């Protein structure tokens, strides 16, 4: 570990495109061999007549079948395991509110490689073992907790698992422990700044903060810049998803011009979500990832449903790993709000349990004072009362039931029947007015 080097893993980070290509070919072949032990893949490979030797270049990944979230649900919980469970040491699971949860297994090596990826990212943005890293992200099943914890420790930083919330305590830690770096969802950092102001704490004067890692919820360039100005820090965009391990998959370098996706760990494809054919660099399509190092649960051509585009394959920072734009949206109807993934069907399911409510509803996502909010407008089935208190308690009960389901508190508005737009065929249920995807 040379603290003066800009690279933690120069042997991988500074590979030329040609070298990356060679490495990926070899690792993709290994992955295919590993998948041979997974009936789901073995059968597909057999049907398609694919063998590891057929892979001559990373582009040959296109010969392989896609994997979807539904496949993960259908094989719940351990159907995609490529090693015996006794070789696994951790699993992360989604909440599963829209059906079977998705489960991702990790061997000891998987956790090791995951920590390496996160450590590489944090090193890339200038963090070193003498930094103090406060992880203000949810722990537990949410991979942003343990993912950053292990990565920051791997780098050698003093790591504070502060977890999410409790701003007064967060601020005390920042001051008392000399925290220099924080990982959090961007909307929380705005909140933290508000509390600092209320407490008379000036982050530039009273703290040693210099670097933020932000991610897990879509945010705009403007929002990033505002956070940087508030705290006087540099904030770097982080991309992760539990299916790929968690945070660490992609991260901005100090150029802050797109996220480097680590091609020694993943094959990155951008495809047209309709035709599933590759789109040219610069054009927006769906991000598809193939794991190259994962032992417990290799995933082939996993459809992330995130929309983005290739910005370039070289960078002034000396890393030739593909640079992707911040996520531009979703190719399904999933919403990401304050780090929580929400499908409209979850909202619908709850609304339908209230006989006072009609079936027409509209979800609007907005950014108000840097906070992302969800408003749920729902029509009253009929006027069941002449009493405000009853309407207010209905609003309260709906809000609480939704919060139990999606773990966020939406703003619930009752509206008269027939006032929400009814569209032909597929109803428009979600209006995203946030600036994040622009």
């Amino acid at each position, binding site marked *: 570990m040379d603290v003066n080097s800009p690279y933690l893993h120069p042997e991988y980070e500074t590979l030329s495109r040609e070298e990356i290509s060679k490495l990926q070919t070899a690792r993709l072949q290994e992955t295919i061999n590993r998948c041979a032990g997974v009936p789901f893949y073995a059968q597909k490979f057999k049907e398609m007549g694919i063998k590891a030797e057929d892979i001559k270049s990373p582009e040959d990944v296109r010969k392989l079948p896609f994997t979807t979230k539904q496949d993960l649900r259908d094989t719940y919980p351990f159907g995609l395991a490529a090693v015996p469970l006794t070789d696994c040491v951790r699993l992360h699971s989604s909440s599963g509110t829209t059906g079977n949860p998705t489960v991702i297994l990790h061997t000891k090596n998987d956790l090791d490689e995951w920590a390496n990826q996160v450590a590489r990212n944090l090193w890339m943005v200038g963090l070193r073992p003498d930094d103090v890293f406060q992880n203000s992200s949810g722990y537990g099943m949410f991979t942003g907790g343990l993912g950053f914890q292990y990565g920051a420790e791997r780098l050698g930083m003093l790591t504070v698992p502060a977890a999410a919330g409790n701003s007064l305590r967060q601020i005390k830690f920042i001051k008392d422990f000399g925290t220099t770096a924080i990982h959090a969802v961007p909307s929380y950092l705005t909140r933290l700044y508000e509390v600092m102001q209320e407490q008379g704490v000036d982050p530039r004067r009273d703290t040693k903060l210099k670097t933020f890692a932000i991610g897990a919820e879509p945010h705009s360039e403007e929002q990033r810049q505002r956070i940087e100005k508030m705290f006087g820090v540099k904030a770097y965009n982080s991309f992760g998803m539990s299916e790929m391990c968690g945070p660490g998959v992609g991260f901005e370098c100090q150029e802050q011009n797109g996220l480097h996706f680590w091609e020694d760990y993943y094959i990155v494809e951008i495809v047209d979500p309709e035709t599933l054919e590759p789109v040219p660099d610069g054009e927006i399509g769906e991000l598809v990832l193939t794991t190259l190092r994962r032992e417990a649960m290799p995933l082939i051509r996993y459809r992330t449903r995130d929309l983005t585009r290739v910005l370039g394959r070289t960078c002034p920072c000396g890393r030739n790993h593909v640079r992707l734009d911040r996520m531009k949206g979703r190719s399904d109807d999933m919403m990401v709000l304050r780090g929580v993934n929400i499908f409209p069907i979850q909202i619908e399911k709850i609304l339908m349990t209230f006989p006072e409510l009609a079936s027409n509803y509209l979800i609007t996502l907005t950014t108000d004072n840097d906070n992302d909010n969800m408003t749920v407008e729902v029509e009253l089935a009929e*006027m069941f*009362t002449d009493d*405000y208190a009853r*309407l207010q308690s209905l609003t309260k009960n709906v809000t609480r039931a939704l919060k139990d389901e999606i773990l966020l508190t939406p703003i619930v508005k009752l509206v008269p029947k027939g006032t929400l737009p009814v569209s032909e065929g597929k109803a428009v249920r979600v209006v995203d007015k946030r600036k994040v995807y622009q």
Partner: protein
Amino acid sequence: MTIHQLSVFLENTSGTLVQVLQQLKKANVQLVAITIADTAEYGILRIVCAEPLRACEELKKAGIAVAVSDVFALELDNKPGCAADVVELFSKVGISITYVYTFLYGGKGILVFRTDNTELACKTIVENNLPYISEESLAQWA
């Protein structure tokens, strides 16, 4: 002893009130009193009218969500302190008044209110011989 009051759920946006009133006009419904209280997002329009049940059907036909509830309408003498005296009678026996509004009817003040205990309110009205408006007298307006 009670009269039917209509309650319409309204979005707190321009044009919603006139929509309901236009429907009532079309149906040739004579209004006696209307009142509206609002929160940030919505309001409840309360209507006292001649032929409230017919009016209710007409509104429903037009796709407007409407509820019918029983409220009391007491006649007050036109002198200071009348309302206080009447409300005190209910208060004394432990009746809570959910909401109240007034209008003029034949030169007399009318106090409209809903309580949390209809039975006890009826008893109080009878015992104190309070003059109340019946649905039949409202129908004369039609």
